[in-house]
């Protein structure tokens, strides 16, 4: 059974078709990248897979459960770290972890041990009793990922996990994600608009453009297929465009706000 299977997903917002017939299959234990510029439909696809949004057409299963008819079982089987800041700055790191242990249904007797394991995996030990509002961007991301590990998710969804991080923090996040996959066999699904990062860290990639998947394969396959020197070139070859940063006022505002808080 695959970790994620989607067939013909369509999501419309009024006249705009944000996701236009996305089909993909992600195997257990894969690190899978959804790659594309802002507005390509990555986040919307992720929202369908995390049950936050019902698709207008198509079907998908995550961890073997249908996102439409069995959303609760999907939510109980996944971890999700949205692009925006989801750790609560008004709480300490330990309180953030305790909160997510409770809301994701970790049995009382296992909470302490699971929190300790997540703290170790994300290297958060020394800062447990500090308010999250005093954290740097990299520490916040690791805290958020730690809170998403407590229910031992079968699939971990991360939306732009390294946005706003400096190169050192970025490398540490990826190192921890690879360690997690190696140790727990967790399937990791990330979205990113950073081509170089996707090429280096993902087992397989789906390049999205205008709500569609325009290329799918391992980085090596994609490079070979398009005779390209980098994933950036592949993107240009399949879309005819360079990757550009666009987005609606609200996206930009939200991103800037997050960037400011991530400082």
């Amino acid at each position, binding site marked *: *059974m*695959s970790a994620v*299977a989607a067939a013909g997903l369509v999501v419309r917002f009024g006249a705009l078709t944000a996701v236009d017939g996305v089909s993909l*299959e*992600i*195997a*257990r234990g*894969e690190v899978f990248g959804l790659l594309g510029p802002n507005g390509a439909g990555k986040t919307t696809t992720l*929202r369908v897979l*995390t*049950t*936050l*949004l019902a698709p207008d057409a198509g079907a998908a*299963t995550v*961890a*073997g*459960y249908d996102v439409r008819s069995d959303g*609760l*079982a999907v*939510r*109980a*089987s*996944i971890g*999700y*770290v*949205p*692009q*925006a*800041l*989801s*750790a*609560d700055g*008004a*709480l*300490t790191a330990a*309180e953030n972890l305790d*909160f*997510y242990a*409770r*809301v*994701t*249904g*970790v*049995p009382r007797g296992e909470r302490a041990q699971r929190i300790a394991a997540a703290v170790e995996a994300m290297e958060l030990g020394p800062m447990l009793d500090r*308010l999250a509002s005093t954290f740097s961007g990299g520490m916040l991301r690791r805290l*958020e990922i730690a809170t998403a590990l407590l*229910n031992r998710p079968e699939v971990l*969804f991360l939306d732009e996990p390294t946005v706003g991080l400096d190169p050192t923090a970025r490398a540490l996040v990826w190192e921890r994600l690879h360690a997690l996959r190696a140790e727990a066999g967790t399937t990791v699904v990330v979205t990113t608009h950073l081509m170089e990062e996707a090429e280096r860290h993902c*087992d*397989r990639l789906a390049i999205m453009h205008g709500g569609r998947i325009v290329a799918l394969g*391992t980085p090596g396959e994609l490079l070979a297929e398009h005779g390209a020197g980098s994933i950036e070139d592949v993107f240009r070859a399949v879309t005819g465009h360079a990757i550009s940063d666009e987005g609606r006022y609200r996206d930009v505002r*939200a991103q800037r*706000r*997050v960037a400011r*808080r991530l400082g």
Partner: protein
Amino acid sequence: MSAPSAASPAASAEPRRRPAALAGGPLRRLAAGTAAMSLTEWRKLRHDQLDLFTRSVQPLLWLFVFGTAMSRLRAIPTGGVEYRAYLAPGVMAQAAMFVAIFFGLAVIWERDVGQLQRLLATPLPRTALVLGKAAGAATRAVVQAVLLLIVVAIAGIGLRWTVTGVVGALVLLAVGTGVFACLSMTIASLVKERERFMGIGQLVMMPLFFASSALYPLAIMPAWLHDVARVNPLTYEVEGLRGFLLGGGHPWLDMLVCLGWLAVLTAAATKAYPKAIL
């Protein structure tokens, strides 16, 4: 490396065991989820005690500046009760309502930063999310009310101090605050933007305040306003608080009406909340 070959459709169609996190059934998950949300709100309150004290200033101004001035005028028929004693329950309810409005703003904040998306992708029951927030608002309101009552007692304002009265008043205040927190969360989930929420929030909350018996009895209102006040949950909250703290009235009946409103608005907020992220 390449992906392992996908399983056949037949294999993926086989029924799966329910995830362990869903053990315990819906009611137990609702209780545990509400408890987790409330605990977290309580922790936030403990990290930010200054906020609690600054918010406690406004009701004191209403009581001691507005209340003292109006009691000199003797313009408001209070049924023989000193005006400041008459006003105290109204001011308690008003301060609680402002706490509740803040929880609508918090929905928008959590939506903008991403906490809401995160929470909605967990198995936490939606109703627990709403009830937990309502309980958080209620906790803040009750702590403020206790502070206010202490000042009222020190100032020698003549309330009827009975254990049942004070406990009943605090429980009713908690329920009433839950009502307005749910109303505020519903509105916030629908309007989604801070600026619009501030406008619409004022448009809803201020009339609710003036079309209630917080400042003056229903009897002196024009007939149409009287009708509005009759369905306004704030009226029942204030009347009930007066019943508990000054005697008379039917405070338990008022409590029942507020519980009814709480049920209705909890359902509304539960339905609206997940739409806030769209």
